[in-house]
Each structure stands twice: as C-alpha cells, then as structure tokens.
C-alpha cells in the first residue's frame, strides 16, 4: 500500500496540471522558497477530505483555488487526484489501484470521487481508514509543526496513538 501519484490542477500555485509519481521508499522534494513544495502536502491533505481551511493555510476553503498571477487568470476550480497502489489488497475494493479525487468550485460547490465515481466525504473517510490513514492526517507533518506534538496537553498526544491503534 503506497501513494502512487498526486495530480493537481488549479490547486494553489499549481494552476496548470502537474503530476507527481511516487515510488515506495524515500522521495525527496526540493526547490526554492515559495516554489510550491508545501502546496503538494496541502494537496494530499486536502484530497483526503480536510474540512478546516486553516489546515491548508487558508481562511476560507476557496483559498486553495489558484487565484491568478501577473500572467495568468484565476482558475474557476481546484482539483486533486490521489492514486494508491492497492496490490496488497489493504483497501477492500477489487482494484489494484484506488483513486480518490476532490474538486472545489469558486462558488463553494465541491465533490468527492472514488475511482472517478461521485461519493460522499464519509465514503472517502472510511476508505482511508481501511487504508490505515486516519482522518486527522497524523502521518503528514506540516512545515513548522514538528514541535506541535510537544505543545499539546498529554491527553492530546493520545490521539496520535489512538489513531494508529
């Protein structure tokens, strides 16, 4: 079970479609300040169903839609697609690859898809839970947040273990 690819379009600084293909093992992403590295992490967190705009550094959820540059008009929609390798059968679906996608339009209208077929947020949550990925994304450590686990109360730290358990 691993994350095979991340596609983004109209998501934050990824106005044009991009695709990252990942392998098992260690992938390192480098680039200058402001180039879009953390936006990849945001894309994954967001596609997994994140409901809080501040978790992707926005004030409203529409903040994740490409808002334009000097040379390019704003996008009308943000879309991210994650493909998981499921050859180990961890997700109880009869597919060797499982795709999760999410869209958001400027008017706030949004959709979720599993294998390109529309679904509800709760379906995405259950699928991820089967995959061993909690809804609170404890496996994604955001920039500047590595200390966060030390700052919470001892009871908050429980959540990390409960999610994994």
């Amino acid at each position, binding site marked *: 079970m691993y994350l095979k690819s991340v596609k983004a379009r109209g998501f934050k600084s*990824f106005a044009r479609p991009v695709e*990252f293909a990942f392998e098992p093992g*260690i992938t*390192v992403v480098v680039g200058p300040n402001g180039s879009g590295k953390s936006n990849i992490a945001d894309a994954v967190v967001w596609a997994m169903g994140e409901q809080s705009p501040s978790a992707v550094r926005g004030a409203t959820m529409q903040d994740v839609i490409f808002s334009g540059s000097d040379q*390019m008009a704003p996008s009308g929609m943000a879309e991210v697609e994650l493909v*998981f390798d499921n050859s180990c059968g961890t997700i109880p679906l009869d597919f060797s690859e499982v795709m999760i996608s999410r869209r958001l339009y400027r008017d706030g209208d949004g959709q979720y898809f599993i294998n390109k077929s529309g679904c509800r947020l709760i379906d995405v949550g259950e699928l991820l839970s089967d995959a061993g990925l909690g809804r609170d994304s404890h496996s*994604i450590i955001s920039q500047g947040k590595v200390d966060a686990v030390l700052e919470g109360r001892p*009871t908050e730290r429980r959540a990390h273990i409960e999610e*994994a358990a």
Partner: protein
Amino acid sequence: IESTFNATFEAVQQNFSEVVSTLFPGGEGRLTLVKPETDGADGVREDGGGGTDDGGGVMTEEEEEDAAAGISIDQRGIEISVKPARKTVRSLSLFSGGERSLVAIAFLFAIFLARPAPFYILDEVEAALDDTNIDRLLIMLRSFQDRTQFIVITHQKRTMEVADTLYGVSMGADGTSKILSRRMNGDDAELSGVETIGD
C-alpha cells in the same frame, strides 16, 4: 478499543526508548501514562517530577489497578520524558530548538514503528537540526524505507542524499509552480516544458 490502545501504547513505549537512544546517543527516553490534568491548565504547572514536559503526575501500579477497576483509564495522557547524555532530566520547554525537534520526531517514529501508516509526508522537519542530528535522522529514515513510503520536503542539500526519487519544483515566469526535474536512482528524467535550472 481500550486494549488496542494499551497494546499499541506498550509497543510505542518500547520503540520510543529505542529511538531516543539512537537520536540522543548516551541519552534515555520514556513515555508514561498520566492522570489527565484536573485544573484545566495546559498541564505545565503540574510538573512535579522534573524531566517531563507537563502532566498531572505518574500513576502507581495500585492506581492503575484502581483505574482499571472503576475509573476511566482512557482519559490518561501521555507524558514525554527525555534525558540527553550528560544532562539531567528537565522540562521539555527548556530543551533547545533542535532537541525539541528530535524528541517530537522520536515520538512520531515510535508510533510509526508500532503501527506504520502507508506513507508519511515530512515537511522541513529538520529545520532546527544541526548537521550531526540531520545525519542521525537520515540514517534512521533509510532504515525504515522498506517498511513505509516517505515523502520528504526540504530545502537542505544534505537531505537530498537519501532520496530514491528526487523531485525539483520551481516557480515559473508565469507565476505558477512546475516540476523542474525528476531523478530516480541516479537517472535524470527531464520533463517536457522544463526550463533550465536557475531561470
């Protein structure tokens, strides 16, 4: 759920001690279950025992049994205690920036070793670490790479060394992000529409 938590916690406890002795050579680390804070504070002021970050005191064996008998155990929090080599145990708030990062990373890895998630994304977790500690972190990451997938975001050259796959991203002249290059295990794969580095 309760016994799952306890079983998981015991494994995490074990792992934490081992990971700390690797990231803090000559040092020791310990996780303990503690009563929840009763005063509504963030627990810092209840630091009775020293060498721990906060939290309402450690439960004795008897107390644990009492709790098991009637009181809800699953309100207990997790207290983190680390003693670096040569230093005495003290509140985590007094630890240095780099030391705090290492403790947090040790906690995360301890959970990972007990119950690996399919993938982890680490975004600049080594920002506060000096080169020696970055190396310790990277050696550890390498030892895990058969078990789980890691996506590591960094602006440090040193960290690039452990990549099986390396992605470069860049902000284009048009104000949008693009993938500049991708290298897998030594082969460079330039992607179409890519400008030369240092545009």
